[in-house]
């Protein structure tokens, strides 16, 4: 039984005050809050397990290694990957993308093309532009529509035997659009291209089945899914990861080292040089356990209710325009009020203890498309309530009165 008040009591931060008012946290798409169940795991690690993993013969190291590798297994099961060693633990989505983009440098052939979508976050644009600069590959862009969806007809016309890689986000961070990744993966595979899906914004709301999707690479961050910052995942198919050269050199990722020649160890350690974020990795597993204890079905239906309610009441405000009205979207609303800069509204809302994001959301091409400097983005989580949305509306009315 989904009980929002019980869930809220898991999140200590939700009872703090901001500027003398109870915090209303609507910036979940930037980072989610952390429940006690995850905080306790981090604390417990430093109180009981702290040691370096994979190399100590002593008890602490063995227990920490078990906990860390146990988390990798939890992640593997959550996402339904074929093997735990296909789950590379990274610093987060950005590092995961950079790892793949860097690896493709030596794998690209002359004339190769890359396809990207117009809905991407800068972290899924810039690493590929850098790859193009290094290799001379061409970047093709799937355009977006007024609704904030991808123009799939153009996508099909961009595909050819030159297409090497397609990378698209599962869910747009700025607009909340859920992209048709199944179709993208199938069509890209039909021309022999590989596909990377950026799941940073999807995983708090959707539980992707990687084997079923048949996706080549899937990346995400723990901190959007009630986990800690600084840890994330790169999933890659075993055969592809085996072909991909190592990203960083160092300890942990080697088999043998001499000054003449070093050989690398196998997956996943080949991509995990140095001491990893051990407590973060363990807590990533705990965060997924927490999400599953609530259940993605319950989360999705509750969040859809919040989204519907917020969309309806926001639209009643005069001069308010919502950007991104895809038929399938997560609980994210990007909007502006006519004649008022998003920054001004964000500043006033902050005074009332309401946290929203304002600006271009690291997705400048989307803002350019709508010809706006930015938006106000309210992004909801399963621990938010309709009462909080009412307070947002009240805050917006006050801000509009002050600013108009």
């Amino acid at each position, binding site marked *: 039984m989904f009980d929002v008040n019980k869930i809220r009591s898991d999140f200590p931060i939700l009872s703090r005050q901001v500027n003398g008012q109870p915090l209303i946290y609507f910036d979940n798409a930037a980072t989610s809050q952390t429940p006690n169940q995850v905080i306790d795991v981090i604390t417990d690690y430093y109180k009981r397990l702290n040691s370096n993993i994979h190399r100590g013969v002593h008890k602490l190291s063995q227990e920490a290694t078990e906990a860390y590798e146990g988390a990798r297994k939890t992640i593997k099961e959550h996402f339904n990957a074929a093997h735990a060693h296909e789950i590379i633990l990274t610093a987060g989505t950005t590092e995961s993308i950079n790892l793949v983009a860097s690896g493709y440098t030596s794998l690209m052939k002359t004339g190769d093309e890359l396809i990207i979508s117009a809905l991407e976050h800068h972290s899924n644009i810039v690493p590929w532009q850098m790859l193009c600069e290094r290799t001379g590959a061409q970047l093709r862009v799937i355009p977006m529509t007024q609704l904030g969806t991808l123009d799939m007809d153009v996508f099909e016309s961009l595909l050819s035997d030159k297409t090497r890689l397609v990378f698209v986000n599962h869910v747009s961070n700025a607009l909340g659009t859920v992209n048709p990744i199944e179709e993208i993966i199938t069509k890209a595979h039909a021309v022999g291209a590989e596909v990377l899906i950026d799941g940073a914004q999807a995983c708090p709301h959707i539980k992707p089945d990687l084997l079923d999707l048949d996706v080549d690479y899937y990346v995400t961050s723990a901190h959007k899914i009630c986990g800690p910052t600084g840890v994330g995942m790169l999933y890659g198919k075993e055969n592809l990861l085996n072909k991909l050269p190592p990203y960083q050199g160092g300890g942990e990722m080697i088999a043998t080292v001499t000054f003449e020649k070093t050989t690398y160890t196998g997956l996943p350690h080949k991509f995990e040089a140095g001491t990893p974020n051990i407590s973060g990795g363990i807590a990533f597993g705990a965060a997924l356990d927490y999400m599953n204890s609530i259940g993605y079905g319950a989360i999705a239906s509750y969040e859809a209710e919040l989204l519907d309610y917020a969309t309806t009441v926001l639209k009643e405000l005069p001069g308010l325009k919502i950007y991104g009205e895809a038929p399938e979207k997560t609980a994210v609303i990007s909007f502006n009020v006519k004649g*008022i800069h998003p*920054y001004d509204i964000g*500043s*006033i809302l902050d005074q009332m203890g309401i946290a929203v994001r304002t600006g271009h959301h690291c997705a400048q091409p989307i803002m350019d498309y709508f010809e706006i400097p*930015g938006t106000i983005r309210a992004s909801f989580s399963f621990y938010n309530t309709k009462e909080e949305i009412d307070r947002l509306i009240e805050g917006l009315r006050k801000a509009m009165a*002050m*600013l108009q």
Partner: protein
Amino acid sequence: METIAERQQEVIEEFSLFDDWMQRYEHMIDLGKSLPLISEEHKTEDNIIKGCQSKVWVYASLEADQLVFTADSDAIITKGIIAILIRVFSNQPPKAILDADTDFIDKIGLKEHLSPTRANGLVSMIKQIKMYAVAYQTQLN
């Protein structure tokens, strides 16, 4: 002529009259309306201050050995902030602007109410004003 320190004191006293954030912000919005606006010809990419979420343009010219600032922003609150800065620093010799400290920002309760991203915008604005002062001071020497 009032010194920069005297003008800062004036602003501090003015803001001390308010006892809640709403009055403070409303006053800032009013101040924004009195901002000496930058002329269209100077509203160029070069005169945009980097590091602000909203667009801020600042321009300075030297008139009778004093720096005169004009500015604009597409956000009202930012306009209020830059208006306060200009009220304090405009029509002053470059040397005086260079020597001035900017503690008054803390004292009018602005900094504590501005998040780091926004405070960076404020820091960039002050930096730009000081940069103009450096440039014109060199010209005067």
